[in-house]
């Protein structure tokens, strides 16, 4: 016996590199989770993109017990109501994988609509097996114990008494703490502390010992480790984010690997403690399943669910294609009075349509809301700031917030005031939260909170000042803005060198397909939301700005495009911006549909009239946009809509201040005149793109590798949070409990939650977000798109494995082709779907 153990250990140690690789692979199947301070959308299936959608669904069912489609009844309803036609079903069946047993025709699918779906069974862990044998809820004990510890370990400043092991890697930190924790032993995990203390401190060595003890079948190791990671999936996702950040900046990070070993240790501890009670035998019996494929009936059932989901998407695509049925040849180019560029965000679609409907002399443009300027924006009084760019990028420039028009001494003075107020706040908080002073604090100040309770309830005060405005007077806040000058500040180089300004200006105009016919006023509008007391507030801000508002990026872009040297340089490069064209930075408030304009005092005097006109247009457009959104906000009374929307933005008890990107379903990259006036119901990302101006298709490549990917992340985040909120969503907002200043728990304990709250996709009566994979429509030559798909493995995985759909639009604005996989395209009209279009 002793020899055998020794042998196993030796073998395991020798196999260590392979084991570390396996742990690393398992971790990479986990999608990262961004902290609440800059919460951005993530595709929960991110780590599985190299699988087909169906295989991904099966993998998630095995690892997390997750569903990747809606309940069968949801589709049955759509079939019976006629929304999904037999044509849709037949088409979806034709695209289904060949290696599973599926009905041969639509009638066959209809016959199975009332079957209960058979999900692939969840892969076993020792905790699961032990729960079955001993009839106690070990998985919950393990998840909650790991979660308690992880909350302290990853805490970003919520606890006053930080966890002792924060400086160590997760495994070493956990080992030190768990060796002191009597709780598991009281709960029946005998010898837990001694077991933990006996483990090596190094996670690699520990992993070798632990896997040897668990004797996981060779072919099942990957599945097992993935299963373990997903059993504490929220914290694993947060650890994955740390890895993501490190790697983005060129480093490496073991956080997630060491974290997975913590979960591995728990399984081994349970096996050791409960083995004699029959858990050993049960584990020996269960673990071979790890190395086996999912049962055929579960595979077939999952594949059928995916067919039904695909049919639903085809039904929606039919409606989309029909909206673009009328050909719209390009008209002669003309100069508009006002151009306004908005983020591609689906919320802009409503506002853009409203704005254009108010005045036909306005043209709107769609572009990623960071306007091509990946910056780190350093707030006044700090030396570091947030990365305001898509999370796939790193900031190329550091931009400092300044008080406009303030002399150096005045700014220093204001900074001093801000620091003093922050210090006072800190002392206040310490007074409030410390063990000893909190009693007297309550007696000194408690009654005063009565007034705050009343004003917070009435929406007159904010629970806490917004971080961008705290410690500053209103008049100063209004003067804040980005500083472009290149210089050193607080030990860092900030601002833009002149040469870079020109290069960036040229790049961004090219990427927006905006090289001629500039209007007198060109608005660049980023976006942000206004909500109070909402842990997920930054999730409603601009994803392209890394979970911040787009204000700084829009203002930087406008200031640079107004720079006379830049204009001269652009002219030399063939982009002639008329003398009388002025760029204006702006922020579209997606909660209230109000647009704030910035730096307008720098406008030439003869633009005053244009500015007035613009302000009126924005106001009128806001009113229309709010009216359009009113029904889903349950604001039915016509006159009260504006007030109702404003009240929501100030309401500390509002769990649905706005609907965010709920409903998003399409991404359209085409000239605006192809989609103008077409009611897309706030469901489409609209990217302006003219392939004729795109020499070498560099811009197309950018669109297909960045905005398209980000849009698919968003759509899949909404998708996952809708189809299985328990796994991919963050649950019920009324139970949310902010943990570590980085995420939320539901209630007391349990795993860290990821994704969107249920309230963000459901209004209590019905789903506001219809779960659909993104349908991407691009007006570009098919060969050009194929070249990009072929070049980028990531893009190819997305389109070939059906994580999104791709369509081609012709020069007349008609959607003509559907990507069929393997660089093949089908002309719409040759298949059943298009026939249905003709009929409709």
């Amino acid at each position: 016996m002793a020899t055998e153990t020794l042998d196993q250990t030796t073998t395991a140690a020798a196999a260590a590199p392979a084991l570390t690789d396996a742990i690393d692979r398992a971790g990479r199947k986990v999608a990262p989770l961004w902290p609440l301070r800059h919460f951005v959308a993530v595709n929960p299936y991110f780590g599985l993109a190299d699988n087909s959608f169906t295989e991904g669904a099966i993998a998630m069912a095995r690892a997390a017990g997750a569903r990747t489609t809606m309940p069968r009844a949801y589709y049955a309803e759509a079939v019976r109501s006629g929304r999904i036609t037999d044509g849709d079903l037949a088409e979806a069946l034709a695209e289904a994988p060949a290696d599973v047993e599926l009905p041969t025709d639509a009638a066959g699918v209809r016959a199975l609509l009332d079957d209960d779906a058979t999900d692939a069974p969840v892969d076993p862990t020792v905790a699961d097996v032990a729960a079955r044998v001993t009839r106690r809820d070990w998985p919950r004990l393990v998840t909650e114990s790991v979660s308690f510890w992880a909350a302290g370990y990853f805490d970003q400043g919520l606890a006053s008494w930080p966890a002792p092991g924060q400086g160590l890697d997760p495994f070493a930190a956990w080992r030190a703490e768990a060796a002191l924790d009597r709780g598991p032993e009281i709960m029946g995990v005998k010898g837990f502390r001694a077991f933990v203390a006996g483990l090596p401190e190094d996670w690699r060595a520990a992993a070798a010992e632990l896997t040897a003890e668990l004797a996981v079948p060779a072919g099942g190791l990957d599945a097992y480790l993935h299963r373990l990671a997903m059993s504490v999936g929220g914290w694993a996702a947060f650890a994955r984010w740390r890895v993501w950040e490190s790697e983005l900046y060129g480093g490496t990070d073991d956080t997630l690997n060491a974290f997975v070993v913590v979960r591995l240790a728990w399984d081994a501890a349970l096996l050791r403690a409960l083995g004699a009670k029959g858990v050993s035998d049960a584990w020996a019996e269960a673990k071979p399943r790890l190395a086996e494929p999912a049962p055929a009936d579960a595979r077939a059932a999952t594949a059928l669910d995916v067919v039904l989901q695909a049919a639903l998407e085809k039904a929606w695509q039919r409606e989309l294609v029909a909206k673009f049925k009328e050909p719209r040849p390009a008209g002669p180019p003309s100069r508009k009075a006002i151009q306004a560029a908005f983020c591609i965000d689906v919320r802009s679609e409503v506002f853009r349509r409203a704005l254009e409907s108010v005045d036909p002399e306005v043209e709107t443009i769609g572009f990623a809301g960071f306007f091509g300027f990946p910056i780190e924006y350093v707030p006044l009084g700090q030396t570091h700031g947030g990365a305001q760019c898509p999370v796939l990028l790193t900031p190329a420039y550091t931009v400092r917030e300044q008080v406009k028009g303030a002399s150096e001494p005045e700014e220093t003075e204001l900074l001093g005031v801000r620091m003093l107020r922050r210090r006072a706040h800190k002392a206040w908080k310490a007074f409030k939260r410390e063990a000893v002073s909190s009693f007297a604090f309550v007696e000194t100040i408690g009654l005063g909170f009565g007034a705050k309770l009343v004003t917070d309830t009435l929406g007159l005060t904010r629970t806490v000042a917004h971080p961008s405005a705290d410690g500053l007077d209103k008049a100063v806040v209004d003067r804040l803005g980005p500083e472009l000058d290149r210089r050193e500040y607080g030990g860092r180089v900030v601002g833009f060198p002149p040469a870079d300004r020109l290069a960036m200006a040229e790049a961004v105009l090219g990427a927006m397909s905006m090289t001629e016919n500039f209007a007198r006023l060109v608005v660049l509008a980023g976006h942000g939301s206004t909500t109070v007391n909402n842990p997920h507030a930054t999730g409603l801000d601009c994803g392209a700005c890394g979970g911040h508002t787009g204000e700084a990026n829009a203002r930087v872009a406008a200031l640079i495009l107004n720079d006379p040297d830049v204009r001269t340089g652009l002219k030399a490069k063939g982009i002639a911006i008329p003398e009388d064209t002025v760029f204006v930075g702006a922020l579209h408030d997606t909660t209230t549909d109000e647009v704030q304009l910035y730096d307008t005092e720098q406008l030439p005097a003869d633009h005053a009239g244009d500015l007035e006109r613009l302000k009126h247009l924005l106001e009128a457009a806001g009113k229309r946009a709010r009216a359009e959104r009113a029904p889903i906000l349950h604001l039915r009374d016509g006159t009260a809509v504006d007030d109702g929307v404003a009240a929501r933005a100030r309401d500390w008890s509002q769990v649905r201040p706005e609907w965010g990107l709920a409903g998003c379903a399409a991404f359209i990259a085409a000239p605006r005149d192809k989609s103008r006036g077409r009611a897309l119901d706030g469901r489409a990302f609209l990217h302006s793109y003219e392939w004729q101006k795109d020499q070498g298709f560099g811009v197309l490549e950018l669109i297909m590798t960045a905005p398209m990917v980000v849009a698919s992340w968003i759509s899949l985040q909404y998708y996952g949070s809708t189809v299985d909120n328990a796994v991919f969503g963050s649950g019920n907002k009324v139970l949310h409990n902010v943990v570590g200043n980085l995420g939320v728990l539901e209630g007391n304990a349990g795993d860290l939650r990821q994704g969107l709250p249920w309230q963000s996709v459901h209004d209590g009566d019905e789903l506001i977000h219809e779960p659909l994979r993104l349908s991407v429509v691009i007006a570009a030559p098919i060969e050009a798109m194929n070249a990009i798909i072929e070049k980028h493995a990531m893009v190819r995985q997305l389109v070939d494995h059906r994580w999104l759909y791709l369509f081609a639009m012709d020069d007349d604005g008609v959607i003509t082709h559907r990507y069929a996989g393997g660089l093949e395209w089908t002309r719409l009209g040759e298949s059943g779907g298009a026939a249905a279009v003709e009929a409709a």
Partner: protein
Amino acid sequence: MLGQDVLAALPGVILLAGALLAGLSRRPARAVGRSLAAQRTACALTAALALIVFFGGRIDGVLFALDRLAAVVALLTAGISLAVQSYARRYMDGDAAIRRFFRDMGLMAGAILTMVTAANALVFAAGWVGSSLALASLVAHRRTWPAARAAARRTALFLGVGDAALVLAALVAVAAFGTADIATMAAEATARAGEPAVLAISALLVVAALAKSAQLPLAGWLPETMTAPTPVSGLMHAGFVNAGGYLLARFADLFVAQPVLMGALFVIGAATALAGSLAMLVQSDVKRALGWSTVGQMGFMVMQCGLGAFAAAIYHLVAHGIFKATLFLGAGSVVQEVRDLDNAPAARVKGPLGVLPAVGFGAAALAVVALPVLVAPATVLSGPGLVLASFALLASLHALVVWTRHPRGLAVALWPGVLAVAVGLLVYLGGTGGMVLLLGATVPPLPATVPVVYVAVPLVFAAALILSWTGVPRPFRGLRDRLYVRLLFAGYRPAGGGHDTFSHRLDAV
């Protein structure tokens, strides 16, 4: 007399009726509307009755009565309940069980008001038990969630201990005094203090108060109640857990004659105050931190009762209730709270104040500190007064240390800090003193002395405070980490049993 009964009982009855109507409503919007209408009416009525009591006199019925003590706590309960339900109207919008939610919230507040306005021990017990049941139902608001059901069972079990003790106390009291009238019991308590039955009643009441106010060793249920929606926590921390303090004040005449029980209250309260506050420090999630903080605050309140400072305890109960309800309802804002940002470049810290203003500030500060001593020396310098004042002083000292800790802070911040602390002290003493005046004779006066050994408690707190400034010395760090782990998992025991491997899969969100 009947009229007075009706008057005193009315706010509670309105809430209970509103709750039942809400529960019976067919449409959610109507349930919410009815419930809120009842809340508004009850709150306005309570305010009117409180004015009558403060400026007129006691409303005196047979089963229900309203004196100054009851009026203060009733006003707190009705006010917080209204604020919390106004919040819940939008917060809970779309919840599948919204009618049940408003029903239970109304029942909980109505039961508490019934208890507060009770003149009869049996009525008091009915309100007390009713509020426990309503809370347990709210903790399991999402019925399909195993964690919520487990937390509700736990809550019911711990509170059940206290509820049983209270019911038993009421029954023994009826047997011993021949009446369940609280005023009669109070009047006779001192004379009959030596009787075993009276001691037994008092001891049972203590057990009841300890369970309701989550005191050691019955504290563990409270931080586990976060499976309830946020507004429940708001009401619970403001109107429910402090019922223990109200019970102690309401039956104070029974306790003051029992030095052993008073000593026990002081010790348990102090221990809970320390343990709860330390457990708060290690929590990384906002709601559990607030929950443990409440445990500590309730410990302080019970400790005040143990000192015989019932008016101070009621003041603490009110101030804490308002404070904690606001914090719970605003708990979603914690992410946006400002963090330490002392790394700012080029911030010019203002130089020290001139000598003259400094002296002026100093003089003003000293005057403010000295004032209470001059105005009410007997109170401030009495034994219990000194114990309580020492907490205020420790807190002031701590605030000052934190405020001036910055490398350049002392020069800048010393005098404003001293002034702020002095003003704080004044508010503190003024508030407590005000409550003493407001409650008048409805609670026993502050005793003149307490055992000298009580000074050990402020000393222990002082030691903890000093450790928080200096850090724990190296040889004791192992001990510190052990304590950390104990505190982190304090009160956490997942319910075993139920084989539910993928319990989360069964959740209806």
